[in-house]
């Protein structure tokens, strides 16, 4: 599934997911959302594994 960014470039993510992503150095725009309407939620960050070459996790 595509990343949950709306056509205006805004990322649909829960506040908690945003915080987790920022803390773990995950580029949230690369995460697929499984919440309502494709919203990125905590479990999407928890289950996220960066695809080879893409969305590399920065050292915290």
């Amino acid at each position: 599934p595509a990343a949950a960014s709306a056509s205006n470039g805004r990322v649909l993510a829960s506040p908690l997911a945003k915080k987790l992503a920022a803390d773990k150095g995950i580029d949230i725009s690369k995460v697929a959302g499984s919440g309502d309407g494709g919203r990125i939620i905590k479990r999407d960050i928890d289950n996220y594994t960066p695809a080879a070459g893409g969305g590399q996790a920065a050292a915290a």
Partner: protein
Amino acid sequence: MAYDVVVLGSGPGGYVAAIRASQLGFKTAIIEKEALGGICLNWGCIPTKALLKSAQVFEYIKHSKDYGIEATGTADFSAVIKRSRGVADKMSKGVQFLMKKNKIDVIMGFGKLKAKGQIEVKGTDGKSQIVEAKNIILATGGRSRELPSLKIDGKKIIGYREAMVLPQQPKSMIVVGSGAIGVEFGYFYATLGTKVTIVEFMDRIVPVEDEEISKELAKNFKKNGIEIMTSSEVTSVDTSGNGVKAKVKTKDGEVILEADVVLSAVGVAANIEGIGLEELGVKTEKGKIAVDKYYKTNVPGIYAIGDCVPGQALAHVASKEGIICVENIAYGEKKYNHQPEALDYGNVPGCTYCTPEVASVGMTEKQAKDAGYEIKVGKFPLSAAGKATAAGHNEGFIKVIFDAKYGEWLGTHMIGYNVTEMIAETVVARKLETTYHEVLDSIHPHPTMSENIKEAIEVAYGEAIHI
């Protein structure tokens, strides 16, 4: 004529499932052996709340002077009971109306699984019929659990049903068990003037709640003349005399309690007997029907929801399970385009409607610590709240628990005036995965009890204004 969906049992699990099924285009029937609405509407949630309201009105009269009102009054026990029955009847009739409106066939009688897709219903007239259904949802609910030492005789050792319709108010009562049902009845009878003693096996009352809640409730109950014996167990009851003599094993030895009546409120047992589970090979586990997250049993076409399956034995849980179960059946049959999300049992609110009220959701402080979280805890005493002072209800507090690392809202535990109406905020905010920031940026109206949730969060983060 075969139905798409037949529901066995018309409690808040069953009747809600039936309505949702009908809405989604299923030809639906519901089978009920007793009264539409199940325990909840007839012998549970609703009639008890009517009784509690009478008690609260009576309390206002007793304390009217505090509000500048000169009043005297007495509670007419039989009128209080009668009102409660009237409220229950009205709600049960409401379910009847809803069944009709949604074109759901109501079949009165005792239902039993007969074969795959078949339920046999034995009517009160003794006649049997076979009801055919593609999908069968078991929603048979529960009943009072009985302890061997505390067999319910319906006269001197009673369960919740009898406690709701006693012919006269007992002068004294022993309540065994201090879950929601036990403390609600304890509060009700004590407020009306019965001498109440609560006996609890665990070391505190309302033992599923956060420890500080138990302590605060006990403090308030004791102030109102309710006796509380924790870490205590009724080992036998002698009913031979005028009232009862209960032998209670306490930490300090054995005590004999005398009272007019004993109320057993030690939990719920699922109704899984005699409904054909064994015959059809439907699996049970620890006395409940085993289901997956969409409430499928191991037998295709047979589902189960509500108090007869694991999970909190609460009406709102039963209803939501019913909706999820039916929507998922519809999703599977392409009648509904949205697969429902599985229920998050960690985000189910629990409420107790005595005074002070108790409401909570999520982890207790201990659970959060045991789960390895580093936490921020904020507790705001309602004695500092303007609305509580204006209302004359300064007892209690609001306690919130956040994950220190990410600001996740782990739990809310409230005790006080009107808190049962305030817990939905936490549930929704948790569902939306808030952090503490967004809640603090949401303006709570002044003066309310609910604004104190925000205050409690400020306490957790060292930004408290009003304390």
